[in-house]
Structure formats: C-alpha cells, structure tokens
C-alpha cells in the first residue's frame, strides 16, 4: 500500500477544496489503465470489495500480482473484445481536491472519443512508453489536446522499470517531445508542458516517489495534479451568460412575484455584479442587473460556472437562446462561422444537407459553406477534402439561419464551441471549434 494518507473528508468539506477535470491519452499498451488504477489504488479510492473482485479476476487470468488495469474494465462488449470503445469517467479525491478523470481509448479510430474526453478537461496526461519513445500516436494525442484547447499537458514517460530507470533514456524522450511540440506550435500557443518519468506498474512517481529514480527531482504525478490550475482560474474572460430558461411564476399567490422575471443560466465566463450595465443579444437591448439569485440566496457578484438567476431593472423581451453580456464587452452576432470540426458520425458529412448547430443554449439551421482542408492527425499535414468521414478533422465554414453570439474557441471554450446535430436522427454528428 502507498504512504498516502487521505485528508479526513469531513475536514476537507470545510476547506474550499477545488475540482480538476483531466484526461489520460494512451493505449492499454502504454499502461494507461494501470496508471489510472494506480492513482485510484494509491489514493485509497479503491475499496476492499472491488479489490477482492479484481484479485479474483487477476488469478483467473493467470496473473501473479493484482492487475490494476482491471479497475477500469468496462462494458461486457469491451471485455469480450478486449478493447475500450467509449470514454469512461472515474472519480477520486485527495481531500484537498476532487478529480474527474476522462479515460479515453487511444487508438486512431477513436479520435472522436478523445475529442469528447478533451472537451471538458483542463489537463491531459500523455503517456509514452519509455522503450518506444515519441510515436505517431503521441503526435496525434498532442495535436488533439492542442486542438481542443487543453492548457496543461503532462508528458508521462511510463515503464521506466523496463529501461532500468535510465535517466538518459528519459532525457532523450523529453528532448524529442519538445522538438515536436515546438514544431506543431504547442509551446507557442502557451501550453504548459511538464515531464515526468514513472512506472505505473510499480507505483514509482505516481503517488509515492519510490526509490528507483532519485535523479528525478520534480514533483510526482499526484503533486502535479494537486497544483494544476482548474478551468477558468487563469485568465480574465468577458461575461457571457446564455439564457437557459425564463422563470415567470404566474400562478403564484404571492403578489410580490407577479412581476418576477428571472433569467436562469450558467455564467459561462467572466463575472457579473448587481448594478452592472448589461445587454441582451442578439436584440441588443440594455438594462442593469437588479439582483442575482442562487436558490434562496442573494449574491452581489456571480462568476464563472455558477448557475444563477438574473433579474434586470427593465422589462426586456428575453428568452432561451439569448445571451446576456456586459454592455462594455458586447459582441456582434454572426450568421457565418469558420471552425475546426471533428466529425463524429459513421454517416459522412454531406455538403448538400442542412444541419442543426447547437451553440450555448441556442440552435440554428446551418449549411456547409467551404471545406478548406482536412488534417491528417498523424502527420498533421493539411489535405484537400471534399467530404468528411468519421474521425476526420477539417476546417469548415457554415452559413447560419439564425445569428449566433460567438467568441473564438482559443479565447473562450464555452462560447467558441458548438455541436452539429443531424435532424433526421437527432444524433450529435460533429464537434466544432470556432476560429
């Protein structure tokens, strides 16, 4: 067992503990499942009955030690085929921080799963097998993490035990990765890249340091996770408040509520205070914030990710799909967008069809304009493209029936992202990041 002592959770509840969402990129062969298993096991998240169960399974499969990768074993279909077919979410807590891991399968045909997992992550662990070094899939994972705007990357050189914990091997991989990261503009884009040598199998440098790599002075994996910034905590963003629902309690017996019109939604970015001048888009009417409610509580200020109700001084016609912004941070609604799109559906994109684009709480019909190029996720080459098949990533423009209030994805993930829906099946068929 590890030396990790979880902070008493009751104590933790009183702390202002934060939440970090991260993802792991790699295939089973890189030890991804073992890494996740190790994090869960060494932070004492795994309880005795689960452990007993995987011990049994490990023995049944003829293994001597407990196979921690079994902790992330998924669906029946996956066990039968010995593969992972979908993103799974795992949870652990250290007492000071709660973690949500998006565990995405690593193979090429699962680009869509990686993009899905990446969409909510603020940090990505990219696994490299110390024996193999930087591979095509490393490039793919790094490109996708970059594309989906994950600001923090931890390059984890795993299986150090299989190269005799050799520092030179590790240093070479780090240098190779940095050269490639510079080449694709990862560093230029302000990504924070950290490196760590480890052995998930033996537990070295995950939660405990172990004693095999004294030459490495940096933090352990868990130490890195504990201090990594959470989403939105790093930069100032303009206030963006897409209206989800309008609350008008007409039937109420309370006369005070007769004129109540609450605009309910989540602060997607920035913050807002009572008294702020705001504008409702796309119509462009302005007013002032009269009150901010969270349940029964009145707030003076609300900030990013809080789900609140806004009351305005004036009666302005506002409905679901509108966006409330600060009057000095307004933006121009657009009817044409240019985006990097990852195609998620087995049915290829058809330029002849009309799709639905859902952006924040707003929907619009959309027609494909031009497909500028698609990206080979392995070589990062830009190739000419007519259509888009599943897992393709391309630069596309759309013409919209309704105006959308957008920011560039690189500036604001919440107002720069959209999904494409096929109206005939209602399936989500594409994921877009506005340029």
């Amino acid at each position, binding site marked *: 067992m590890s030396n990790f002592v979880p902070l008493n*959770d*009751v104590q933790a*509840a009183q702390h*202002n*503990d*934060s*939440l970090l969402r991260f993802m792991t990129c790699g295939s089973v062969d890189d030890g991804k499942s073992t890494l996740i298993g190790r994090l869960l096991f060494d932070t004492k998240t795994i*309880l005795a*009955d689960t452990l007993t169960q995987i011990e049994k399974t490990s023995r049944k499969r003829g293994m001597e030690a407990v196979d921690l990768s079994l902790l992330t074993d*998924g*669906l*029946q*279909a996956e066990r039968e085929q010995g593969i992972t*077919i*979908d993103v*799974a*979410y795992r*949870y652990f*807590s250290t007492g000071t921080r*709660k973690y949500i891991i998006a565990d995405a399968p690593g193979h090429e045909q699962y680009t*869509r799963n990686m*993009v899905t997992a990446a*969409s909510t992550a603020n940090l990505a662990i990219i696994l490299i097998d110390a024996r193999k070094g930087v591979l095509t899939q490393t490039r793919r994972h790094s490109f996708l993490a970059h594309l989906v705007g994950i600001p923090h990357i931890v390059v984890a050189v795993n299986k150090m035990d299989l190269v005799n914990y050799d520092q030179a091997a590790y240093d070479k991989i780090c240098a190779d990765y940095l050269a490639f990261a510079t080449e694709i503009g990862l560093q230029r884009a302000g990504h924070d890249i950290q490196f760590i040598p480890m052995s998930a199998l033996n537990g070295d440098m995950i939660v405990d340091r172990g004693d095999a790599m004294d030459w490495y002075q940096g933090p352990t994996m868990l130490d890195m996770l504990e201090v990594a910034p*959470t*989403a*939105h*905590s790093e930069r*100032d963003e*303009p206030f963006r408040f897409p209206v*989800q*629902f309008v*609350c*008008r*309690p007409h*039937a*109420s017996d309370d006369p005070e509520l007769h004129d109540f019109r*609450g605009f*309910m*939604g*989540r602060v997607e970015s*920035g913050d807002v205070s009572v008294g702020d001048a705001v504008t409702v888009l796309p119509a462009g009417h302005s007013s002032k914030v009269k009150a901010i409610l*969270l*349940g*029964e509580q009145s707030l003076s200020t609300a*900030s990013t*990710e*809080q*789900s609140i109700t806004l009351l305005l001084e004036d009666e302005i016609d506002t409905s679901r799909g509108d966006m409330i912004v600060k009057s000095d941070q307004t933006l121009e609604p657009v009817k044409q967008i240019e985006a990097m799109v990852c195609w998620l559906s087995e049915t290829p994109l058809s330029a002849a069809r009309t799709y639905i684009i*859902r952006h*924040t*709480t707003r929907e619009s019909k959309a027609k494909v304009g031009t497909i500028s190029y698609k990206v080979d996720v392995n070589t990062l080459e830009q190739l000419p493209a007519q259509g888009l098949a599943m897992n393709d990533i391309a630069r596309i423009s759309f013409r919209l029936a309704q105006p959308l209030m957008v920011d560039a994805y690189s500036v604001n*993930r*919440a107002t720069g*992202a*959209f*999904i494409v*829906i096929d109206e005939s099946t*209602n399936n*989500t068929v594409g*994921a877009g990041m506005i340029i």
Partner: protein
Amino acid sequence: MTTQTKQPLSHLDWLEAEAIHILREVAGQCSNPVLLFSGGKDSLCILRLAEKAFRPGRFPFPLLHIDTGHNYQEVIDFRDQRAAELGERLIVRSVEDSMKRGTVVLKSPDEPRNKHQSVTLLESIEEFGFDCCIGGARRDEEKARAKERIMSFRDEFGQWDPKNQRPELWNLYNARSHKGENIRAFPISNWTEMDVWQYIERENLQLPSIYFAHQRDVVMRGGAIVPINVPLASGEVINQPKAGEEVINMQVRFRTVGDITCTAPVISDADNVEKIVLETATTTITERGATRLDDQTSDASMEQRKKEGYF
C-alpha cells in the same frame, strides 16, 4: 474586469452548479419531462437541486415513483410528505399493477421486483408521453454507469445501446428525441456517494429514518445482512426467515434504499448525517457491494438491465 486570481468554486459548489445547469437544459429542451423520485438520498438531492434551479417558479415537471410494492413504509411516507411540502405533483405507478395487467410475470412469488420496474417505467412513459426522465444515477456506482451519458438516449423500446451512444461534448447536451423515444437525464452523474452525503449535510436535507442507525431484526444470508419480517402498507409481512436461520437484533442503517427484497443494510452506529459522512470516508466496501443483492448475479447485470430500459 478583476485582475486578481479567481477563486475556483469548491467541488460541491461546482457539482451543484453543473446539476442545476443540466436540470435547466432538460426544462429548456424537452417538452414533457418527469423527475423520478423514490424518496432515496440521491433523488432527495435532486429535489433540492430542482428547488435551486426553478424557484420561485414551480418545477417544470411532475415527480414519478415506480413503486415495487416492496418499499419500506418509512420511505413511502417520507416520499409523500416531501412531495406535499414542495407542493409538486407526485405520480405513483406500481409494479403490482403491471403484474395485474400481465405485463410483469414473476418467475416465483418471491423474485425481487427491482428489474421489473423497467416495464412499469416504460408503461408510464407511454401513458403520459414523457420525453425525458430525470434520474439520480451516478457514474461512480457501477461500471456500466461509468460510461453513461448525462443525457442518455433510449429508443422506442427503452433500450440503451452502450456501443452507439450520442457523443457528449463540453456542456452542450443534446436532449432531442422523436416521438416515442426517450432521454434519461442524470444531473448528478459526476457525484460520488461522498459528495451526496456532504451535500445532504451542507444543505441540511431531511432523510427517511432508515438511513440512520436503528435496531432491526435480521438474518445472515450468503454473507449479507437480510432484514426480516418487514411489514408492508398492505399489512403483509415480507422477508420471512427461512428454516434454521437465526434471527439477530442488530444496529444497522441503509446506505441505499430500494426494494426490500434486494437491499441490505450495513452494521452502523451512525445516527446523524455528520457520523454518516465520517463513516463514508472510512468504509472499505462500495455502496453497491455492501447493499445490492441484485447487482452481483453476474458481472454485467446492471449493463443488462439498462439495455432493457432500466434507468
């Protein structure tokens, strides 16, 4: 704009904000949603979240309980009391009615009715034309749940197809469905058992009494604690001890409440929420491992039930 480093939300505040957002998306996107409410701790959290999401308005959905007829009376009473306090409409549909209609046929009279809730649920969905059911399932409960979407699509037979789920990115949920199809929405997907208890503590939520330590007659059966001689509202008494079983009076509490025939209590002296939070922090057994007698039949039994329309 401020220039100081922003204080991120605490994990409970973040989870709460996410759940409220999901509930409002259901209200905004679906025309006839319903909230599944059993009187259990997870659905009580969701009721609290719905208050925060929609008050001072009424909930934009009724509450629905699929009653197996084998629920603890304390929980049923609590369910009715809570719905009345909130002033929201509670619909109850019963597995026993499905049995009378012949749509549920038990293999034997004492077969647990939990899995048959799927039939009654699907019948209720059809009866009322619900296009979305909001449930309190969590991804940490079980491995089939770990891969479930927050807005999970079910076809006209109520089936979940784990290999063909709608991709779900950012917080852009797609709750669209055609007539006859159905969305299951899970606002507390990202919560763990600990989060639920911490939230109950923070919000000072009331719970049915059987969640707290109490004295109860039980027998040990196959390594599990089985409550016996449980009276139902009908006057019937179920879970009779089998011949040769020794009846023990024990101090126990339930970590999860459900059908009497397949939910086991744990030994505990935690008689308030604070003690339960502490106990949850130090337990060595998972919630379902300790308490669900029906998940253990096979490695894939939850997955199987979900494919058949279970929530």
